[in-house]
């Protein structure tokens, strides 16, 4: 069964450092998403990406965040200068259609900012 894979499973970084979270979506999918879950809180939508550009983003997704698909297989989330409050589980998802309620999710990357 095809699945979305995310690396690393856990990343610890110092405040102010840049981090890149990596995702390999399912190969024939065209729509890509990032969600995050701060510990004990809800899973929140961050951004959607289609045709090599951001199609939607939430208010959380400020200038510190960026996404790209550098090589046609990976889909990355970059946080330019991490803050303590960026500590969360980050989920990548991909889908064949633009209905992200039918997306497939990865196992998540736990980011800890110290």
């Amino acid at each position, binding site marked *: 069964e095809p699945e979305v894979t995310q690396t690393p499973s856990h990343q610890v970084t110092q405040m102010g450092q840049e981090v890149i979270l990596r995702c390999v979506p399912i190969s024939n999918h065209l729509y890509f998403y990032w969600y995050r*879950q701060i510990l004990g809180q809800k899973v929140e*939508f961050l951004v959607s990406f289609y045709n090599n550009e951001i199609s*939607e983003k939430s208010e959380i997704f400020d200038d510190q965040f960026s996404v790209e698909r550098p090589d046609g297989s990976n889909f990355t989330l970059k946080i330019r200068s991490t803050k303590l409050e960026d500590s969360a589980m980050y989920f990548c998802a991909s889908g064949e259609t633009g*209905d*992200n309620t039918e997306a497939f999710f990865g196992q*998540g990357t736990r980011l800890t900012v110290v």
Partner: protein
Amino acid sequence: AQSVAQPEDQVNVAEGNPLTVKCTYSVSGNPYLFWYVQYPNRGLQFLLKYITGDNLVKGSYGFEAEFNKSQTSFHLKKPSALVSDSALYFCAVRDVMNTGFQKLVFGTGTRLLVSP
């Protein structure tokens, strides 16, 4: 804005017993409701969804959910729990942004522990 609430952080049940994981929703308009499960070290997996039609929705792995409009609930159920059902369960609702983009709004999750 659309939202869901999962009032229980954890549910404990013995194998073979029925299980219920609770979810209530708050929406404007017709709700599109979902359940996802996350097994250890795995991604969020779609279990089932309610769009319209029968209030009892059947999904993967023997799970079902009952949509109750008067109680604004969408509880996840299974008649006989398995130890392998132990996982984190998320209720979600579809929200439509001003641009027409559809996104999922998740609850905080409920951990289900099934004991042998």
